[in-house]
């Protein structure tokens, strides 16, 4: 087979794309396990990354881990894994145990954060993280640092005032912020056509005086390429970029949602044919980067990590109830 090695054209090595595949699969399998645990009554809540792993991992590979800052949103499991979180960290969060590095079990899963990874703590009201990203970038500019700040959000969130206020501020001050919209077509139950009158979320960048780019969110190599360009623009002092990665949310909004009430099974089955993990595995095999044995080995490694993480987190002790009183203010 003679498929072009598109990843080489984008500047990625064979090992890097294999690593990307590993992270995508790890995110998917952690997510799937959390659904099982939820349905078994062991964890109260799951919010998924399924269908968005390619965009998240592709973007993360274009950033500089431990140097750039992240203000992610609740679906960004793939992103935070690349930046250093482990399956164990994620499972500790799912089981709400105090060793959870995101919040010590105080927040629902998906509310990522961790100073050691440059991931700012996030909340549930959507899009509040966007002005925070702009503020970190402003601080970096004041201190003459050379990092970029990456913030992500859904297409529904691109309607929030905080998106527009943050984008405008970053545009005026030409700050190195990457606004990354994961357009998965649904804001819980409300489809894109009821969310936006403009053709594309990326078009919204025009109003703020910077570049908007639309990219296939099922293709991690393309996402890597556009995020890398956006990062370089930011570092050159050319300001922010808005990237819209188009994908499909393969599962309900959360473990408390039932998507059969607002979309057909046919539509979901059609989207599953373009599942980014299947497509990327196919690409890696067609261009000779991954063979059956390697695919099997990655799957086994992921399976083992998820199993171990689940067992550890389930058996970890809960925090002392009175610890709820701690950390309201600094000492």
């Amino acid at each position: 087979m003679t498929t072009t090695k598109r990843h080489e054209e984008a500047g990625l090595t064979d090992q890097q794309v294999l690593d990307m595949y590993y992270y995508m699969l790890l995110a998917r399998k952690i997510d799937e396990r959390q659904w099982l645990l939820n349905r078994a009554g062991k964890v109260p809540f799951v919010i998924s990354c399924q269908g968005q792993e390619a965009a998240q991992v592709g973007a993360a590979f274009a950033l500089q881990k431990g140097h750039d800052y992240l203000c992610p949103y609740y679906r960004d499991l793939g992103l935070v894994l690349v930046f250093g979180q482990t399956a164990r960290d994620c499972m500790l969060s799912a089981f709400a145990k105090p060793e959870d590095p995101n919040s010590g079990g105080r927040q629902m899963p998906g509310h990522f954060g961790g100073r050691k990874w440059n991931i700012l703590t996030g909340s549930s009201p959507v899009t509040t993280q966007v002005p925070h990203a702009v503020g970190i970038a402003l601080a970096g500019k004041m201190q003459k640092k050379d990092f970029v700040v990456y913030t992500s959000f859904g297409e529904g969130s691109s309607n929030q005032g905080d998106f527009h206020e943050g984008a405008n501020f970053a545009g005026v001050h030409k700050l190195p912020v990457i606004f990354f919209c994961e357009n998965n077509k649904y804001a819980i139950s409300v489809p894109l056509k009821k969310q936006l009158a403009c053709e594309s979320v990326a078009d919204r960048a025009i109003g703020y005086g910077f570049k908007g780019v639309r990219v296939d969110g099922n293709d991690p190599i393309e996402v890597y390429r556009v995020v890398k360009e956006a990062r370089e623009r930011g570092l050159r002092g050319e300001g922010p970029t808005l990237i819209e990665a188009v994908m499909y949310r393969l599962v309900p909004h959360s473990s408390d949602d039932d998507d059969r009430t607002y979309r057909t099974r046919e539509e979901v089955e059609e989207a599953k044919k373009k599942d980014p993990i299947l497509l990327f595995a196919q690409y890696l095999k067609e261009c000779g980067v991954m063979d059956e044995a390697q695919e099997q080995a990655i799957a086994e490694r992921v399976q083992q990590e998820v199993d171990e993480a689940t067992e550890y987190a389930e058996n970890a002790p809960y925090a002392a109830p009175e610890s709820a009183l701690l950390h309201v203010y600094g000492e």
Partner: protein
Amino acid sequence: MAVISFIDAVTMAMREEMRRDPNVFVLGEDVGVRGGVFRATAGLIEEFGEERVIDTPLAESAIVGVAIGAAAYGMRPIAEIQFADFIMPAVNQIVSEAAKMRYRSNNDWHCPLTIRAPFGGGVHGALYHSQSVEAMFNSTPGLKIVAPSTPYDAKGLLKAAIRDNDPVLFFEHKRCYRLIKGEVPEDDYVLPIGKADVKREGTDITVISYGLTLHFALQAAEKLAQEGISAHILDLRTLYPLDKEAIVEAASKTGKVLIIHEDNKEGGIGGEVAAIIAEHCLFDLDAPIKRLAGPDIPAMPYSPPLEKFFMLNPDKVYEAMRELAYF
């Protein structure tokens, strides 16, 4: 010691902190070249440049949200909300974000942010340039709320707010800005957030207040002293968390308590102060706890007689204090 106005004390505090710590910076609407619509940031852009005195786009949620990001990174931003009335678009950022950042991250992140906002009426500001909004925030653990009444307190508490490692809402009564003058040391000092202050010692009645109405109480106390009535006056200074110990001590001292604020009565800070007294020293009281506050109407009207009707003044305060003394 120099006698300066309230607003000059605010400016002095910011200037000193910006000289002391390069991480301190100011952002808000018209704070740069104009020096603020009240002139609180006058002279700062000339000294510190536009990188540290930032005229922002007109968008309050971004002013606070951007400041939160910078604060989490390690800066010490002072965000100005031009009028407290205009803080509403930023409430989500203040309550859901700044106030909860430390708690929700299990102490991994924190937010050393100061938000300054002029509040209160009596300046022909009508509905949307006169409000007292402090009660909307005073059940938000994680946030501190400060409202000084004198230039000395304003300087010492603003410096404390800027150095605090948690978010502080700093309310400045705009009528106090040029009306209230006082001695302010030119050297560096900070006052503790969370501590009330006895502004006048007395034995017959206790008045608990903050902001502009504290001065009305001081004036009324002078007049009452000539009639042989001795008023004890406590300035709350910090509205959240309240200084419970000082409130109980002041209430117990005379057994007669009048709580005064310009904000409307129902749901105001006074209700919480009264509850603290009722919980801790009810049997020390010789009279029902009284509250004198703005009427429960949406906001202050523009028309002068209507505005005057809303506002408290030394005469209204004198009457209420006298009535309580004779209970």
